[in-house]
């Protein structure tokens, strides 16, 4: 968060990009105190409206990279330029675990970002209700996190990220701990929300299938040090919203393409 670049973001529109860059990263490097080089020379831009996946094996520095994008971790080298105003108020973050406050009701958990930003009263009330209904948890505002299933807790976590009306939604393997049925369902719901809200999503995953299913663009990462080795672009496809998509040949082709890229990355 200390390395904000003064220069305004470029307005160029690269091939196949969905829009102008929202956030740009240049030569990002990070070495941990232990001496492990987590990230080396990472440059990419996050484009407005895209669903960008960061795909890589566990321990490749994906989480660190996401925290750098969020401004939670300062890189050792390189710089990052945020589009004016998209931090922190307009960034949502969904963690690996639901990370809900166990002592607070679901409603209070979801309202937390507004509380921290000093937004309260009627506005907070209405936005909490909106966020709850976006993830289908209207009836659980007064429940405690321990009363909900894993999938529902993750929904609550998503609602908490959505309540700030994020331009940029950062997600760190959010569904990795869920069973496949819940994961598929949440994948579909996430795509629908992305379409409806028109936000930009950066999605960290180690699942080839999840990346192939969700993203408009995937950056494939290698491990130790974490670098971006390949970019795989998919055309924004309307067929994605076909219920048969998960078993279609085009989905299989995408997954294969990503698998091969991931193998080359090892």
């Amino acid at each position, binding site marked *: 968060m200390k390395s904000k670049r003064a220069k305004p973001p470029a307005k160029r529109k690269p091939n196949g990009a969905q829009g102008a860059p929202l956030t740009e990263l240049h030569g990002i490097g990070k070495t941990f105190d232990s001496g492990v080089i987590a990230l080396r020379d990472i440059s990419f831009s996050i484009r407005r409206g895209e669903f960008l996946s960061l795909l890589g094996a566990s321990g490749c520095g994906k989480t660190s990279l996401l*925290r750098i994008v*969020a*401004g*939670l971790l300062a890189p050792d080298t390189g710089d990052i330029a945020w589009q004016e105003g998209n931090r*922190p*108020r307009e*960034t949502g*973050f969904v*963690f*690996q*675990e639901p*990370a809900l*406050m*166990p*002592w*607070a009701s679901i409603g209070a958990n979801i309202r*937390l*970002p507004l*509380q*921290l*930003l000093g937004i309260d009263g009627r506005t907070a009330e209405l936005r909490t209700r909106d966020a709850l209904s976006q993830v289908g948890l209207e009836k659980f505002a007064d429940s*405690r*996190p*321990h009363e909900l299933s894993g999938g529902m807790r993750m929904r609550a976590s998503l609602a*908490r990220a959505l309540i*700030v009306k994020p331009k940029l939604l950062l997600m760190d393997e959010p569904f990795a701990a869920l069973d496949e049925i819940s994961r598929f369902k949440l994948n579909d719901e996430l795509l629908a929300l992305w379409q409806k809200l028109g936000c930009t999503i950066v999605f960290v995953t180690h699942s080839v299938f999840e990346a192939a299913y969700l993203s408009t663009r995937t950056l494939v990462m290698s491990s130790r040090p974490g670098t971006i080795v390949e970019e795989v672009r998919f055309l924004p496809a309307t067929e994605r919203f076909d219920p048969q998509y998960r078993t279609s040949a085009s989905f299989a082709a995408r997954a294969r393409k990503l698998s091969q890229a991931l193998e080359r990355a090892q």
Partner: protein
Amino acid sequence: MKKRDLLAPFIAIAILITAWETAVRYFALAPQVLPAPSLILQTLIADARLLFGSLLVTLRITFAALFIATATGVLLAILFSASRFAERALFPIAVILQVTPIIAIAPLLLIYLEPANAVLACAALVAFFPILSNTALGFASADRQLRDLFSLYDAGPLKTLLYLRFPTALPYFLGGLRIAGGLALIGAIVGEIAAGSAGAGSGLAWRIIEAGHRVNIPRMYAALVLIVLAGVVIFALLSWLQHIALRRWHASAITAE
């Protein structure tokens, strides 16, 4: 819990007391050797005014000490969570105070302080450490991802303390408080014994010493019974407080479906 489980400790204690009573009668032991439970109860009733007055004195010291220990323990824990340096500098001193036997410090305290204050200081000193160490651990246990969330939305240290660190630390603090309650009572007794006749001489421990000098063994036992009961009640009270505060959300209080 089943009714039988609830009753179990009472039944065990009843059996123990009955055996004690029977043994004293069977072997015709003199009260100076071992008073029967019935005699202890009689003494308790006969000396009620004296003994319960002393109980009140000891309890007042215990709770005052617990209050002081809680206030200083929590404040220091807040300081530790705010400053790594303060923790590095001061925590070892707290450990030194903790590992030095209170019975060895008490005579020194009695030189520097008024006897009543020295007794209070003894009790507060022993009660203070579990509160400090537990609460400090609690403050440091805030979920990493939640901490990220708080800094993402620019919550300052005060908001993070109020909305994240305090609730996270509550179960740890209450666990420490439950230990500290019993320790405060022990500290008060130790202080009173060290103070001896120099003290105001009215706490329960003093009654034990006094009765010992007069070879009034039943009264020694009666005073001891009151100390034990006070300890049990304090423990039960703090356990109940813990249960009430945590029953809606904490893993220790939630029963699996």
